């Protein structure tokens, strides 16, 4: 059972810890500065965060284990654009996609000591082998000719928000991109292939490209650590499941109250158990009928329960972003935060929730420490 929670928000990083009296806020860092992503690195006890200064860009900071001093590290930086590089424009807006860091949108540990992967907007994947002190753009993916098919979704440009490293074979990595589908490598990123096969946009006719894997919008992708062939995706239009290592996808249809949402978490040892936070599609993005619930499947998506004990009664308009729901290594404790600044914890797999705060800034990301 986890006893520390890190919360990245629109206005800083907040830390909550549990003792015998319960949960309480024990830290507030980078106050006033957006923290869109963070990584508690369980390999060495360090905490890595991205601070997104509006004026000065994104900076990476690290707090080492048992230290109270934050270090500033190098931020991922795109290399100088070669003169002969093709101009890539967002397919929808025909605006040139910049060679410049706009947002750190995912941070995940790799399989080797000190190895960290970082996904960004406008679509670059970065790799560090020295605990985030230096970064290199994964040019094999950035220079893939099919990148011209990626487009922005909620943000102006495409971005990598989910990175899944195979727990037993770290050369196998899958990344999910809004809106660029799912890309897989089996050679540590030397080569990549599109694998959003089976995903569809239900508002685009199939003969108009609604089922084309390029440009699909998986909002969030997670992999079951104990059964790494099982992935779950909360897509813009539906929930998807993969049983073959993210090579293809099966739509989980007719999920109530909605198949739309952003967040998904999977049980670490039972691949059939997953949690979602539904919302009214597409541009509305609030709980259906103002009834805020978490949905849970225990049978691989055959059925879902709507869980609401401890969550606010209707009407409630909390929205949970893609990185703001997670489950701990026990599979028992979940934490969830909303764009209206509420934070909840469940110690019974979502059956009931305890409200830790109603007054945080809009919550972007949450991870257990």
């Amino acid at each position: 059972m986890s006893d520390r929670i890190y919360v990245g928000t629109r206005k800083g990083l907040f830390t909550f810890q549990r003792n015998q009296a319960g949960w309480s806020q024990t830290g507030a860092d980078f106050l006033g500065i957006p923290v869109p992503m963070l990584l508690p690195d369980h390999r060495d006890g360090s905490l890595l965060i991205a601070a997104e200064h509006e004026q000065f860009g994104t900076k990476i900071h690290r707090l080492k284990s048992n230290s109270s001093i934050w270090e500033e590290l190098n931020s991922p930086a795109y290399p100088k654009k070669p003169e002969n590089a093709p101009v890539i424009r967002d397919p929808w807006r025909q605006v040139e996609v910049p060679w410049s860091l706009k947002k750190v949108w995912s941070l995940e540990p790799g399989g080797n000591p000190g190895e960290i992967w970082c996904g960004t907007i406008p679509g670059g994947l970065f790799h560090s082998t020295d605990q985030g002190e230096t970064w290199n753009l994964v040019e094999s993916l950035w220079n893939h000719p099919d990148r011209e098919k990626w487009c922005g979704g909620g943000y102006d440009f495409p971005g990598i928000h989910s990175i899944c490293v195979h727990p037993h074979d770290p050369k196998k990595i899958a990344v999910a991109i809004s809106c660029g589908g799912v890309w897989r490598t089996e050679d540590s990123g030397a080569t990549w292939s599109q694998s959003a096969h089976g995903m569809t946009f239900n508002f685009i006719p199939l003969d108009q490209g609604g089922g084309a894997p390029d440009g699909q919008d998986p909002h969030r992708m997670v992999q079951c650590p104990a059964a790494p062939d099982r992935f779950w995706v909360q897509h813009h239009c539906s929930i998807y499941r993969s049983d073959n290592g993210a090579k293809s996808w099966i739509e989980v249809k007719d999920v109530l109250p909605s198949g739309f949402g952003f967040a998904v978490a999977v049980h670490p040892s039972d691949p059939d158990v997953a949690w979602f936070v539904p919302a009214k599609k597409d541009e509305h993005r609030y709980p259906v009928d103002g009834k805020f619930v978490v949905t849970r499947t225990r049978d691989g998506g055959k059925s879902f329960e709507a869980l609401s004990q401890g969550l606010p009664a209707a009407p409630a308009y909390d929205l949970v972003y893609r990185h703001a729901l997670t489950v701990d290594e026990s599979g028992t404790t979940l934490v969830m935060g909303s764009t209206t600044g509420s934070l909840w914890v469940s110690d019974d797999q979502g059956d009931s929730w305890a409200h830790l705060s109603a007054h945080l800034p809009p919550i972007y990301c949450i991870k257990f420490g």
Partner: protein
Amino acid sequence: MPSVAFSPNIRSHVEIESYQVYGKTVQEVLEAVFEQHPRLRSYLFDDDGSIRKHIAIILNSEPIADRTRLSDHVGETDEIFVMQALSGG
């Protein structure tokens, strides 16, 4: 030598003082400062090398003319002040 100073907000992130450094253009002056404070570069410039949109460079009380190449001429007694627009929500 020309002098260069930085706004308090910039100095809150990078420990930096006012300097007198050699340089005949704004670019040369800033590069001389970056040699002593390499971390400052990413606060003033994007990773594509362009000056961040919220950063203003003032030369003798006037905004510089060339924000692309920072080629404005700097004289021996000129004063540069680097500041940022502040916004939020």
